[in-house]
């Protein structure tokens, strides 16, 4: 994996595999991670790159990962219950929509937050910088909340206290709500320009 596209697609796929194998027996999760690592390697090297540019190969890997999310979720649940689970088309669609929305939210949030920070830095605008940080922090809040859900399930299945996991869910959710809310509300305040500029592609306009 020399091209950065491929490296990025690999990181995305491995992150997802690590996420959905969390909470499973060590051997089961480890074998799935190894199998996907091998698949990624094969696709990124000779066999997968026949006539495919690194960018196209990366998009291909990304697509294979995203399209497999409903099956991954079903597999995870099945392994927990010790039986093979099949999802209906409706269930697959719901999981797929949430997966795409989640990915889009994270990508858009990271772009928007980074843009706010860079804009604020370059234009000497503390407000833009501050709101950029808020958006990135709310994205981190999402990760904390999701990690909390996994930690809860794991602690519950192992008979340990779930207090720490519940705290993570509450902190993550509050982070998303408070920080996201502060951005939305603050963005409408007079003098704040970040929602009318930069990534959204609109012209800077003085607020009335």
């Amino acid at each position, binding site marked *: 994996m020399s091209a950065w596209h491929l490296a990025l697609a690999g990181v995305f*796929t491995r992150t997802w*595999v690590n996420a959905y194998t969390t909470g499973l027996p060590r051997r089961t999760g480890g*074998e*799935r991670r*190894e*199998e*996907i*690592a*091998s*698949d990624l*390697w*094969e*696709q990124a*090297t000779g*066999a*997968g790159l026949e006539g495919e540019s690194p960018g196209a190969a990366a998009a*291909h890997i990304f*697509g*294979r*990962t*995203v*399209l*497999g*999310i*409903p*099956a*991954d979720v*079903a*597999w995870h649940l099945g392994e927990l219950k010790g039986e*093979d689970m*099949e*999802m*209906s088309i409706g*269930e697959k669609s719901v999981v797929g929509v949430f997966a795409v929305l989640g990915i889009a939210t994270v990508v858009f949030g990271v772009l928007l937050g980074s843009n706010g920070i860079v804009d604020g830095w370059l234009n000497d605008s503390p407000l833009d910088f501050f709101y950029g940080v808020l958006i990135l922090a709310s994205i981190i809040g999402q990760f904390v909340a999701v990690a909390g859900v996994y930690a809860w399930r794991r602690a519950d299945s192992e008979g340990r206290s779930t207090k720490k996991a519940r705290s993570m869910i509450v902190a993550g959710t509050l982070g998303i709500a408070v920080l996201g809310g502060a951005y939305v509300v603050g963005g409408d305040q007079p003098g704040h320009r970040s929602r009318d500029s930069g990534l959204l592609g609109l012209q800077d306009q003085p607020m009335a």
Partner: protein
Amino acid sequence: MRRKKGALVPLEISILAACINLALSGLKESHGFLIAKQIGDQQGARMLTAHGTLYKALGRMAKGGLLESRWEDPVIAAEESRPRRRFYRVTAEGQAALRAARAPAPRSTGASVTALV
């Protein structure tokens, strides 16, 4: 949704056929990516089977006795500086299941399967 016990879904038929075609071309065992590539070639699809869909099916088929799997010797993988592969091969039960699923199909497929038994 639960499927009918013993019935093969289209992906399982494709996996069995891919493994058998690869075996006929000299590869007695195949790893997941190779199987996905073979399925893609057979179906003329540009997009390979999604990771989750493929490995869930392979695991289910191995548990069900249609495929048998083994992990590659880690020394070989280390020597080639790559992750170790998990190899699959079709069992006699898998061949029989494919034959049954393709019972009304043309003879050529049946002959290929029989050649491996």
